[in-house]
């Protein structure tokens, strides 16, 4: 269905309006085959709408989408043989047990590997004999995860799959995704949990108000922004004066006897060369976290290292 070097997901200029509200406003998204791709954005940015267009649940008003080379609206059934989906809000048949729901979802796609199912049920510590209506949110999420991960498909579409999971299960989920990636499966992971995206994803797309505002590898995105540096100096006052006039330095300040500043990526070399004459006693520098990137895209105050 797809040749190996083409994109697993390719969306160009997607537009989707609900009444007068434009949920998607010219959205582009490109997920390469075999990568784990993070899909980030605040509530209401259009992540779930995008995914639902990519699954053929909604028909885009404009733009083009290809998933594994297929048109997600027209070729939905053929396409869905090759992908598995975990929705953000998992609602399953209340009067079925978790085990029955997993088996039913599996049978609808022609059966699932019983060994893999048993393995996943054990890893996620799911009690499959409980009826769905009695599960907590996290446990319903696990049912959907087991059903999706047990399917032998090249593409996983996960819409905030770990909301409601405890940290142990979150770690298990990350192991599962790494295994999937190692096995060559493509993963589109929409998430709010930035640490999870940072740990799993090679490339990310950040969207805002129905439009992609950043897309690239984490390193590329980090290169676009500033590094936070904290220096301990013999002559802090002299250093501050010099830094204030240096190019590419932002918000130098004295904090608890140290000097802290943000440096543009391309000015880092010059700025660090300037410091030794003020007697450097210690230095810490950290690249921007995904959270910094994310907050910057949304216009929050960024600048103080945590």
């Amino acid at each position: 269905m797809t040749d190996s070097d083409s994109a697993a997901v390719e969306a160009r200029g997607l537009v989707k309006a609900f009444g007068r509200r434009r949920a998607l406003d010219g959205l582009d998204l490109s997920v390469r085959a075999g990568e784990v791709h993070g899909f980030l954005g605040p509530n209401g940015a259009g992540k779930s709408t995008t995914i639902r267009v990519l699954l053929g649940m909604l028909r885009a008003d404009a733009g083009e989408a290809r998933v594994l080379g297929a048109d997600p609206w027209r070729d939905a059934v053929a396409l869905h043989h090759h992908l598995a989906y975990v929705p953000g809000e998992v609602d399953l048949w209340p009067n079925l047990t978790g085990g029955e729901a997993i088996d039913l979802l599996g049978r609808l796609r022609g059966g699932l590997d019983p060994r893999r199912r048993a393995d996943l049920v054990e890893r996620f510590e799911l009690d499959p004999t409980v009826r769905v209506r009695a599960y907590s949110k996290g446990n319903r999420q696990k049912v959907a995860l087991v059903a999706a991960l047990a399917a032998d498909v090249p593409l996983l579409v996960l819409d905030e799959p770990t909301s409601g999971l405890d940290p142990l299960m979150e770690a298990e989920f990350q192991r599962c995704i790494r295994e999937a990636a190692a096995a060559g499966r493509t993963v589109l992971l929409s998430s709010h949990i930035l640490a999870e995206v940072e740990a799993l994803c090679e490339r990310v797309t950040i969207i805002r108000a129905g439009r992609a505002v950043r897309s690239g590898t984490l390193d590329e995105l980090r290169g676009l922004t500033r590094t936070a540096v904290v220096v301990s100096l013999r002559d802090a006052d002299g250093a501050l004066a010099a830094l204030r006039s240096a190019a590419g330095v932002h918000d130098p300040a004295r904090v608890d006897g140290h000097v802290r500043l943000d440096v543009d990526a391309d000015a880092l070399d010059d700025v660090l060369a300037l410091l030794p004459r003020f007697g450097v006693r210690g230095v810490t520098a950290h690249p921007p976290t995904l959270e910094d990137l994310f907050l910057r895209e949304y216009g929050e105050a960024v600048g103080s290292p945590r």
Partner: protein
Amino acid sequence: MTAVAAPVPAARPAAPAARRAADRWAGTGALVRVALRVERVRLPVWLVAVAGLTAASAASQADLFPTAESRAARAELMRSPAATALGGPGYGLDDYTIGAMVANELGAWVALALAVLSVLLVVRHLRGAEESGLLEVVRSTPVGRDAPVLAAVLVVTLADLAIGLALAAALVGTGLPAAGALAFGLGCGLVGLTFGATAAVAAQLVTHARTASMLGLAAIGVGFALRAAGDVRAPESGSALSWLSPFGWSQATRAWVDERWWPLALPVLASAAAFGLAALLAERRDLGDGLLPERPGRAHASPRLTGIAAVTLRRLGGALAGWAVAVAAVCGLVGVLAREVVQFLEDEPALAAFFPEGAASAADAALSRYLLVAVALAAAAGVQGVAAARAEEAAGRAAHVLAGPVGRARWLGAQLAVVLGAVAAMVLLGGLVMGVTAASTLGDPALVGRLLGAALAQVPALWAVTGAAVLVLGVAPRAFGLAWAYLGYVALSAMLGGVLPEGSDVASPLRYTPGMPAEPMDWPAVLVLAALAAALVTGGVLAFRRRDLLA
């Protein structure tokens, strides 16, 4: 962080006992207001429907039985055990006024409607709110432990009394005496309240709203059966069994015969006791828990749970079986009554003159008439089945399934196959039961085949009504109320056919099916209806394939 921590407000000193007791009810008023707001459409609709339909039926009875002679003849018919079981003990049969007729023939059914309303209302606000987690949020605010139960009590009491009084007013409006109307309205309202209180207890016992509703509805069924059995044992007074049933208490007011008021104390006392028990039970359990244990289910799906149709059957099986039982019960009772119809006409040559072919054709007319009631019930089951598919979609389960290799036509088609098959089976079952019972009471074995055939001829019309709901689902899923409204129109036209203005049923498919066995088969009409049904279902499925999912 500031150096000085914000002072933690000291916990309130131990309140005096009286205040602690009052705290248990704190916030009740606010909960009642919220509940009334949530129900602001549903309750008025019930009120207008119950009061309006009862008054319309009373008026039509006055038209149908204008003279004392015709009413006396009707009273004779009502003396039969089958009529007693369906209606009431038969107070005032010796002087069968319109009032006595309303109380005897409609009272049990009006009370039944209020009982169902009350059970659903109480369960929705108690166990439903608890299951969805709403009650947890509410209880985290300064709302007392007993406030939710008390609020449910007040809301259901208000609802039942309001409907009871509206009922009384509407009946006075048709010209019936006020005292009897008040006894009748209050009696019906208090039956509702009693079953609402029973449902409040059920809501404490089990963890799921659905199970609690089923327990409440089962209690109604038991109450109705007790009254029926009790009244049959002691016609015109009611036996001890009748006095065990809230339905019996309401009928014991003898509305429009010689009213007595003290039986109304029984439902008041019983409701108070049941609500007290519910409050006690609510205190003895944790929020979200029931008192009866939840059993573990299967870890693996059984080999029969293979697809959409299987899971639909699993989900709707109970409800569909319930509708089938209702259809079979109505048809069976009508079949048993068939003999009384014939007897009645043989005793009343004046009436028999209306049926040129004699009493047998009158029986056929009655049977075909009641078969329509069965069709209306099955149509309600059909619309409910389509509504269930919509609920699957709105809950997001459709998206989850359709993200697998399942096409939209298959997803909807499999569910519709179950629903359409089930409603057709329901009507055929009704025809069979009516046929067998009528054949044995009338001694005419040919009736089995004739009524089965009559039922079969109704299937296209039934599918057309269901198909209309499918079309709404496909084209305007957010306006699914239209499907229910259309069902209401079809059911009303079928049940009140003789009373409504001529031609008002022009948009109901049931109008065009031959009224077998009284009328001959009309192939063109049935085939056109079958084509219409196919077009509606196909159109709905095609529209569903082309639109966005709801969730």
